């Protein structure tokens, strides 16, 4: 198997599906970069280089650079999905969902239900998320909790290159609207990724690492943080299981419950703000369903209830660290 970056894994998936299905189109801001200008074509290959080469392979009718006009093109993508195309729309930074949330929340998410099941909306909205790039408060949020709250949407948040490819292929072939969240600090991470296409079903958590003393449930980029914590804990004699839900809607409740029943100690790690979040949601689920199996309180390691700060020392303090995860684990694992 080839080693590929997270970015390349996504690019592979986009190339494969655009080639496989002519109804798949892409639209977004600077998906290529340089449209209408005299210099290099496909100059950016997307704001983070994820969509490079697609313009050359499939042309400007199917790979559409849009105006900076999220409400219009996300709405257009929803309308196109309703009428026979399978659009992949890109919101450059998930924070920009603020200007097109109506089209996501009130329109695409609800078409099928409002129309009595007589519509389908095969739409993928790709968006970058996450802190760590020194970009201040409006290019850095982790908003998966917000989308997870909305019935009708599926929410995918891969943690590694292999999953990124398989989950994106599944998202494009899926007949429901999917929010596909890519952490920008993960794009350069590398892993084994097959060249051939494969899909990973939604709602199937991955057991990243087995363990018996504590279960660490981590979301998106935090899976890597949890793994690092688990390795350090192992050297201190604490055996930590790491679980990656991979999709927050649907959520693989069965696996989370099973592991909690077995181990009885849980730490949830999420980069999102803590109030009304996926972390609190999972915590409530486990407390409700596994109360008798719990040997200690469920601990959450999350960002604080604040916007993402700019100053490097503050931003570093905002993002959950392996040290913070270890501290939470030790607080519930009696040594």
């Amino acid at each position, binding site marked *: 198997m080839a080693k590929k970056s997270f970015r390349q894994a996504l690019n592979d998936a986009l190339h494969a599906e655009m080639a496989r299905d002519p*109804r798949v*189109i892409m639209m977004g801001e600077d998906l290529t970069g340089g449209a209408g200008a005299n210099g290099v074509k496909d100059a950016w290959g997307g704001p983070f280089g994820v969509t490079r080469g697609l313009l050359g392979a499939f042309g400007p*009718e*199917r790979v*559409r650079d*849009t*105006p900076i*006009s999220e*409400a*219009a*093109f*996300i*709405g*257009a*993508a*929803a*309308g*196109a*999905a*309703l*009428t*026979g*195309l399978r*659009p992949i729309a890109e919101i450059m930074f998930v924070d920009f969902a603020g200007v097109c949330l*109506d*089209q996501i929340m*009130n*329109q695409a998410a609800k*078409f*099928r*239900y*409002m*129309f*009595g*099941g*007589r*519509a*389908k909306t095969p739409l993928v909205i790709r968006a970058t998320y996450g802190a760590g790039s020194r970009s201040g408060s409006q290019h850095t949020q982790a908003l998966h909790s917000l989308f997870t709250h909305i*019935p*009708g949407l*599926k929410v995918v948040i891969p943690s590694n290159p292999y999953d990124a490819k398989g989950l994106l292929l599944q998202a494009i072939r*899926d*007949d*429901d609207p999917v929010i596909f969240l890519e952490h920008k600090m993960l794009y350069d991470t590398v892993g084994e990724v097959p060249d051939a296409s494969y899909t990973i079903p*939604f*709602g199937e958590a991955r057991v990243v690492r087995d363990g018996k003393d504590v279960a660490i449930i981590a979301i998106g980029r935090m899976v890597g943080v949890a793994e690092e914590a688990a390795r350090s804990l192992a050297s201190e004699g604490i055996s930590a299981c790491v679980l990656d839900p991979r999709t927050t809607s*649907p959520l693989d409740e069965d696996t989370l419950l099973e592991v909690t029943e077995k181990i009885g100690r849980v730490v949830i790690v999420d980069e999102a703000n803590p109030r009304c979040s996926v972390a609190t949601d999972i915590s409530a689920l486990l407390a409700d369903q596994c109360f008798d199996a719990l040997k200690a309180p469920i601990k959450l390691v999350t960002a604080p209830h604040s916007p993402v700060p700019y100053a490097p020392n503050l931003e570093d303090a905002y993002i959950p660290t392996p040290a913070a995860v270890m501290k939470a684990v030790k607080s519930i694992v009696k040594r």
Partner: protein
Amino acid sequence: MSGLQLSHDKLIEVYRSMRTIRRFEERVMDEMATGDIPGNTHLYAGQEASAVGVCLHLKEDDYISSTHRGHGHSIAKGVDIDSMMAELFGRATGTCGGKGGSMHIADLRKGMLGANGIVAAGAPITCGAALSAKLLGTNQVAIAFAGDGAMNEGVMSESFNLAKIWMLPIVFVIEDNGFGEATANEHVSAGSFTRRAESYDIPSIEVDGTDVFQVYSATGEAVERARNGGGPTMLHIHVPRYYGHYSGDPDNYRTPEEKAAMRQDRDCLSIFRKHVKEVSLLDTAELDAVDEAVEAEINRAVAAARAAPFPPLSALTTDVYVKYL
């Protein structure tokens, strides 16, 4: 105004469609008073010539999107009135199985992409439908109906821009009934709607929406432009709104005199009847026969809706996804 370009059958169809919308809405207003239609609804009465004049140009697979005031557009596009009435009553036999209601009636088999509870939200969705038509090479056109209130939503301007740069086969039909909810349009709208469209190089025209033939004529040019690859057009259609913003609105911000004059002078149905009789295209007996037939259809729709079952409780959580887990 002239009805001469339309065949006898078409004229009857135009009148039947306008009369159906009018009586549908009047009857819904009456039925609201019985308490058997849940919630509230936004009635299209007075604006009939706009929906009918526009949709007369459309093929069954052409697309329209509508607004919160959507019954007229649905009827004009051919959505079945029995199922619409049942939908308003919240019944399982409704257009959306009782799960949508007045503000979400949609029928994709008729190209009807949905009424909408969010002002101006249909505009970008319709751009998407027009994009599908263009990329799939189907020669369909798409009509985005919106009200004067929608013109002050940002996404409307964004949609004009997108439609023009992508040369989409779309017509924006702005039905200006003079009021956004309870506020007069002139109190909240700067400049002119046609000049806004023209600033995007979108051809636009103001139309008297009490005259179905004027609407028909203006739309013909716009639809032809769209079908022939000429891109978007915007029609600014002036229409009266017979009722308040919604069915429960006391509508006391308009004077009784204004409202009486509106119904006296700007009734598209009276204007149509007067015209076709004057030029001997249709006679009173033919027109009255249509009225009678429409009345029977509306009666039947209401009776069927009242007799229909509510959706089963199991429907509460179905149709959220095609497939979830």
